């Protein structure tokens, strides 16, 4: 397996959507290729960092304003 072939399947490997046979081949390539190993690990880490850090906090008071807006619609409609 070449690095380009590995890269084409990188997302499937990260998302765990490869069959056993392909996985074995991908893992074999990883063992012998430091570049692809770094790319794989750091790409996985990139996703994990974005998933686990709140970069846009919900502004305070927004929920209350929304609640009031819904209640006022409700009085009209239900």
């Amino acid at each position, binding site marked *: 397996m070449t690095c380009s072939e590995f*890269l084409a399947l*990188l*997302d499937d490997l*990260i998302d765990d959507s490869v069959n056993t046979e392909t996985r074995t081949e991908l893992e074999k390539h990883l063992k012998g290729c*430091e*570049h692809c190993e*770094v*790319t794989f*690990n*750091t*790409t996985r*880490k*990139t*996703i994990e*960092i*974005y*998933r686990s*850090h*709140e*970069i*846009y906090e*919900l*502004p305070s008071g*927004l*929920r209350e*304003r*929304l*609640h009031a*807006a*819904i*209640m006022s*619609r*409700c009085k009209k*409609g*239900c």
Partner: protein
Amino acid sequence: MATIQPIAGENEQHPDVALVERVRAGDVSAYDTLVRKYERQIFRIAQHITQNREDAEDVMQDAFLKAYEKLDQFQGNSKFYTWLVRIAVNESLMRLRKRRTGKMVSIDEDVETEEGSVPRDLADWAPDPEQNYTQSELAEILRKTIQGLPQGFRIVFVLRDVEGLSTEETAETLGLSIPAVKSRLLRARLQLRERLSRYFRRKKGGEK
């Protein structure tokens, strides 16, 4: 009015379906529960698309109000969350168009870019790269980095990787084909990785 008819053999009913039914029957407090459950996600999506806090606040409010008013149109065959996300994405894009009158805002045009499609920065990262920054420094790095992605890549990454929609749901929400979502996701992930490498790469001895 849409009725929910579970197909035999399908997974059991999602808890949101019961909440939606209660709202339809006139129980507003059930809608509050749905708002609390998804307000953070909807605000984040709006902020990622509009890149403007004021717009994101308006979008969140409008999206939840619109969903409330259109609840009768919600079909039980999609998840309430993905239905709500679709409304929020549309509201966000509408807001962007208003702000940039005359300028096209499109998420379906592909961006030809070589950047990130082939990994260049191959240095490994420090073991826990986040530890080298304070929470606010890190948040700033993450914001700046993702804001620099082309819009079409950013939305796909946010929906798929941050908010947890499936490839199919992301495609449906954005009106893209599945291969288009997959190709953008790969490029978004690689570009973000490449850009974050500047901050997170393992430093040579002596440097911080």
